[in-house]
């Protein structure tokens, strides 16, 4: 379980995240949606611990085994296989785990390619493999398929769903696609100008948004 209390983050005296209270239940899948600059990435970075709030606290009762995939994951200039292995503890099964994870996201044929030579979509799939290569309790994914093609997106989505079901981990991801939120999330959180405007079961919120902001945001999308 993760709990956020009285969170306030400001840049240049402008509030970019203002969350009085938010709770993520263990083993549940959450989707963050909202327009650009609504605070999705800031919230994920806060949960990942790469950002400290100006005010408030984040209480994690499952602090170990967190995996966070940023919006622009860095692909290191060594082999794809080593890029995934670096996320794993040194053990005899390390290579096996990394290869299996790469196969799952359709990157099996790229194991010897250099990470920094991959396309944006391939780098995202490799980064996803880095996260799912070992069991974790909390997975944070920032727009995990924003650069992948449809085939890659299907593979990543299915891999994430299988992984979450297998590990029983908490999944929190951001997306610009309500359709993806519907496919992956049990619960959706709609953010607007750094505030949570609406939160609820994915199907209900995406089909019948209660707030005006969510209605305006979703009217541009065809589910």
């Amino acid at each position, binding site marked *: 379980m993760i709990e956020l209390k009285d969170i306030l983050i400001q840049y240049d005296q402008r509030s970019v995240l203002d969350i009085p209270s938010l709770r993520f239940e263990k083993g549940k899948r959450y989707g963050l949606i909202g327009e650009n600059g609504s605070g999705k990435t800031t919230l994920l970075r806060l949960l*990942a611990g790469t950002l400290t709030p100006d005010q408030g606290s984040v209480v994690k009762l499952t602090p170990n085994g967190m*995996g966070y995939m940023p919006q622009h994951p860095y692909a290191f200039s060594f082999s794809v296989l080593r890029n995934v292995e670096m*996320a794993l503890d040194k053990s005899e099964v390390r290579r096996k785990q990394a290869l299996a994870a790469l196969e799952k996201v359709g990157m099996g044929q790229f194991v010897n390619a250099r990470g920094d030579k991959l396309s944006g979509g391939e780098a995202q799939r490799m980064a996803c493999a880095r996260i799912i290569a070992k069991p974790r309790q909390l997975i*944070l994914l920032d727009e995990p398929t924003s650069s992948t093609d449809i085939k890659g997106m299907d593979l990543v989505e299915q891999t994430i769903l299988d992984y979450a079901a297998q590990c029983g981990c908490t999944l929190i991801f951001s997306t610009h696609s309500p359709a993806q939120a519907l496919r992956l999330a049990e619960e959706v959180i709609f953010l607007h100008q750094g505030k949570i405007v609406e939160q609820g079961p994915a199907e209900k919120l995406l089909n019948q948004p209660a707030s005006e902001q969510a209605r305006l945001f979703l009217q541009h999308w065809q589910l």
Partner: protein
Amino acid sequence: MQTLLEAFRLLLGADPELRQIIAVTMQMSLLSTGISALLGIPLGVLIGANDFKAKRLVNRLLHTLMGLPPVVAGLIVFLLLSRSGPLGTFKLLYSVTAMVIAQVVLITPIITGLTANVVSIKAPLIRETAAGIGLSPFRRMLYTIYECRVPFVSNILAGFGRAIAEVGAVQMVGGNVQFKTRIMTTAIMMQTNMGHFEFAIALGIVLLLISFLVNSLVGRIQEKTLSA
């Protein structure tokens, strides 16, 4: 044309003074670049990879020092090493050591500043990805250094370029003493003033040749690293 031919004759004949000047120049430039790299790269990584309160001020100071006029650096080192200065007891003035110190003062901010710039671009991306998969801060730092290895070579080369072409500071603290502290740039200046153009041209050719060789070598290393 006659002067140019004489310059090549001097070069091919390997004049003992010319040999000595080239040797001192290389010794001083390589040593000062090496020391500056050892100081500047770690310092640049620390400044570029970390966020701290005085970072903006440190960067401004660094950029100011990157453009430090050589004569000012020479003056500072001269005052430090002169007989009445705090380091006067070491009697280092008018020695290659004094020239190396002056060059380290000049080159270290350049290598530090360039390194900090490169690292500050790459470090946030690496930090976020590495933290996301649970790597320790020490391993993040090692990966950051590894990922910046190619620009680091260019930074060191920029430092070497400054060292080998510098004249003001080394003239002040080295004194241009024949067979001791005379280097290519100070010799070119002196020989030109004396009207010995063939000697100055011969040294100029060597300077250009060294610069071309170093650039070619580094270019090759960078190409190989990037395409491997």
